[in-house]
């Protein structure tokens, strides 16, 4: 790899005497302060809504809109009858670089389905959100499109998500933060 050598521009006379630059910095900061104060006050009064003030997002009351392709918490998709689409082929378990997927297979009573997961656990404390599991799945049975980002727990065990939680992310909807649409 070639190295690019960067040279700093030497300070000119105006910058080197220091005080004017300090004054200029104060001016920039004061200008932002005054503008935000004015626009936020106006917003409170219901005015000037088309102008945007300071860009801080007031998390968790406000949530930044997510990109469509963002990889968020996993879910298992379902067949029409509500059973998991997963056939326990172990592709995701095999490809997972963090080895955080644990599947146990069993016989499905329907010979046309044949195989189904007895249990399907993901240890989200270990997951690196690479999305390989979604990419490798031949049945479109696992997706990372729940837009759930705030995964937290007081214990390591709490980071283990079993098949029921993965199949029904909506059950946890009330405690979850979703971006405003």
């Amino acid at each position: 790899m070639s190295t690019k050598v960067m040279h700093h521009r030497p300070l000119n006379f105006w910058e080197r005497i220091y005080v004017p630059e300090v004054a200029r910095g104060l001016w920039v900061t004061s200008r932002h302060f005054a503008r935000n104060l004015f626009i936020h006050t106006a917003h409170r009064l219901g005015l000037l809504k088309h102008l945007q003030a300071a860009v801080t997002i007031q998390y968790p009351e406000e949530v930044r809109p997510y990109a469509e392709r963002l990889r968020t918490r996993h879910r298992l998709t379902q067949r029409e009858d509500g059973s998991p689409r997963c056939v326990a082929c172990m592709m995701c378990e095999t490809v997972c670089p963090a080895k955080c997927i644990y599947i146990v297979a069993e016989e499905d009573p329907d010979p046309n389905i044949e195989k189904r997961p007895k249990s399907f656990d993901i240890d989200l404390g270990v997951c690196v959100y690479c999305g390989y599991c979604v990419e490798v799945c031949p049945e479109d049975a696992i997706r990372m499109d729940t837009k759930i980002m705030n995964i937290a727990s007081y214990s390591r065990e709490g980071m283990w998500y079993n098949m029921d939680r993965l199949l029904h992310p909506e059950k946890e909807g009330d405690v979850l933060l979703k971006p405003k649409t």
Partner: protein
Amino acid sequence: MPTLTIDGKTITVEPGTNLIQAAEKLGIAIPYYCYHPGLSIAGNCRICLVKMEKSPKPIIACQTLCQEGMVVDASSPEVGKLRQAVLEFLLINHPLDCPVCDQAGECWLQDYYMEFGLYDPKFNEQKVKKHFKATPIGPTVTLDSERCILCSRCVRFTDEISKTHELGIFDRGDHSEIGIYPGKELRNNYSGNVVDICPVGALTDRDFRFKCRVWYLTSTDSICPGCSNGCNIQIHVNRERPHHAKGERVMRLKPRYNAEVNQWWMCDAGRYGYKFIDKDRILIPERREGSLFKEEEWEKLLGSLASSIAALFERYEQNALGICLSPQLSNEDLFMAKKFFEEQLGLPQITVLSPSPEGDQDDFLIKSDKNPNTRGALALGLSKVSFEEIIQRIQKGKIKGLYLFGQDLLALLGESKAKEIFGKLELIIFQGSNQNATSKLAHVVLPSATYAEKDGTFTNHAGRVQRFWKALEPLGQSLPDGEILRRLASEMGTLLEFETPEAIFEDLAQSIAAFRGLSYASLGQEGKLLPDGGKVVARAVRHEKEDSRE
């Protein structure tokens, strides 16, 4: 001796060699499904097509015997095109079941599709529905006839090897499918082999079904301990994903080719006889106090055992400890036992006692002696007295201590007689891998490793010494039998210093005439016959049998 040219390389082969075998010798892999070196030639899968000079059409390599002056093209792009077309036909009715198919990962359709696949398929007709989808056709095998490519290997196996004739091909043309004759099921002593020879996922193992994906398995060469035939096997272990089968480590056994012993096959009793490796194991050394077992550290337990044995010798005499060695032990373990009990302690009451009674026998692989190393135990000259004599001496009150190697006396003698004998003993030592009724009554329980957890050799019924390799770490605190004896010996103030099973075998080959000249290096993968042809031992076996008849 015909000389022919394949892909520009010239080779001279034995008459009767076919093109696949000749190419294999040259390192050229011709694909095949229906051809199997152990079965007759069917020539129906057509994937082994090759081109031959002066032949107007392509020929199949499995059916064509080598002739003088043949010039064969086995791997040019045109030949690849032929195979691609054949594969397209084979896959017409094949479902896209790979995600749920146990064969995936070791499937020959997958393998050859990678090489000759038509990745842009043209077929858009309706697939023909077959009758059997995930249908058990016997106690061991599941049939899925949609996946079948009708190579007829399994049919030929039941006709030619097991000679039980359960399977056949039914209906015609596109509707042909493998099936079971009416009123029959695939139930014979060798049924598991059809799963091995099925190149696709049509016949899968019910025991292995959905237990583990094949790419998680690691394979170690070993010897089946199920009977004295000593079939060569591979132990397939799931090391990476213990959650798949509730922590069981050994997933399946597969036969390994040995022309002199089992060729490509193994019996079902051996194939499914691996469960004891992970089930009902003794994990921790224990000593009984009253009616309760107390778990102890190896060192402490062996120390107190050594003093118990010494006390026994002091109170009575050296004859008061009877040793029942097992033909389940390896040559190395038995040699350690010989050194320790016979040479160092000078015990005269040593016998070799099979933990299981004689079973069925057939004229193929299954032998009535259900132990892998009876021949080895006899060659080592370990049976000093018969087991009956030991029992008599216990009843007379001469023997006060008994050292068992895994045998369940309650099953062998009957509960009342065994308990009567145990009542006369002051010290019962049980060294074994698995729990049984006797281990629950013993005073000292020493957990030993199974054959899958150690290196060693077995000597089969024909006197063939065969090597087996360590596939797993010993479960819990268990140790190889030889290692337990080594530690016990050092507690008793004698020395049995061997670093490895190989060193033990080296000493064994030097000091036991029957094994002279053998070493791990010379045994290789196939094993070697005892140098004297096992004649002396054969006489001993006969003698032993006459004894047991009396």
